[in-house]
């Protein structure tokens, strides 16, 4: 299994370099799909800080799983890999570290800021 630290570093880097091209590549160029995913993501991502504050050992892998699916759908493959690695470890009995939760929230915050900017770009305006 790849080191969690390496995956985390890659995920941090990815969150800073999100752009419209990356998102469109991940969604096969379907702007409607991308708009829809961005709306769902903005709604979902607002829930994660609360969910991740003090999750039970049973809940934590489930939350990580859901977030991994969400970010993967948008094309954040490195972040999804980190979360996938974390989830697998948790399900195999690895301890849930506060530093993991902090790292997730920090990347999520960075990604959300970038996505908010992207979602207002004229290229993504809905055709009337």
């Amino acid at each position, binding site marked *: 299994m790849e080191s969690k630290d390496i995956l985390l570093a890659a995920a941090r880097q990815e969150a800073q370099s999100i752009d419209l091209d990356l998102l469109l590549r991940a969604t*096969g160029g379907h702007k409607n*799909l991308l708009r829809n*995913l961005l709306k*769902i993501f903005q709604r979902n991502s607002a829930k994660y800080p609360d969910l991740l504050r003090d999750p039970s050992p049973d809940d934590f892998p489930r939350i990580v799983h859901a977030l*991994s699916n969400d970010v993967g*759908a948008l*094309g954040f493959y490195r972040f*999804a890999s980190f979360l*996938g690695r974390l989830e697998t470890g948790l399900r195999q009995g690895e301890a849930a570290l506060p530093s993991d939760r902090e790292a997730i929230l920090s990347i999520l915050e960075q990604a959300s800021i970038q996505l908010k900017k992207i979602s207002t770009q004229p290229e993504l305006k809905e055709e009337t």
Partner: protein
Amino acid sequence: MGERFSILVIDDQEMNQAVIAEAISGPDRHVVQAQSGAEARGLARNHDFALFLIDIMLPDVDGFEIAAELRTIEEYRSIPIIFITSVAMQPEFMFRGYELGAIDYLIRPIHPAILRGKVDAITSLYWMNRLLQEQLERAERLTEALRESCEALSSYGLDSRSLPGSSPGSAEKQNIEKLLANNKSLLLKNHDLQQKHAAILATIAFPKTKKKRSPKKLSDTRS
């Protein structure tokens, strides 16, 4: 609206559902989504699905269990299944999926184009299967008609009273014999074709006949 290829997608994550729906939708498809194993069970009983896309990690049951349950329904014994996962990536999980008759085991994140390509291939196979079924049914009907015709011609030709003024070697008798020989040859060719169609259909994993069910509760269908 004519017949459509019905696909059941079992996945509880909203973003996954959005990606899958966009990737696999089409005018010849009917995409139905279930968010849990329980919902999938109910939908499977009231629809005729030709493909299942199943996420391994569902809230109430794992995807393998729901696939095994679906396999116990006669009409779904040979329906193609594609498993999707972002966590069950170890070989033992994949083997389990293929043992349940999966034709693919996809690891997330999935690019829409990849999923579309796979579903398009299965959809084409489905329509070819339907065409072949129709041809087989037509061949069966033709075989029956030819057999009846041969029987009628044989008895007509053997009964001399049916051929007034005819004698052995007469033109009428020769025509009937020629017609009978043609029909017999056609019957053999058609029977051969029928057997070939049946052999091809036996190798394709779709049910031979569509179930006839009265549609019940469709209100909970999101498609």
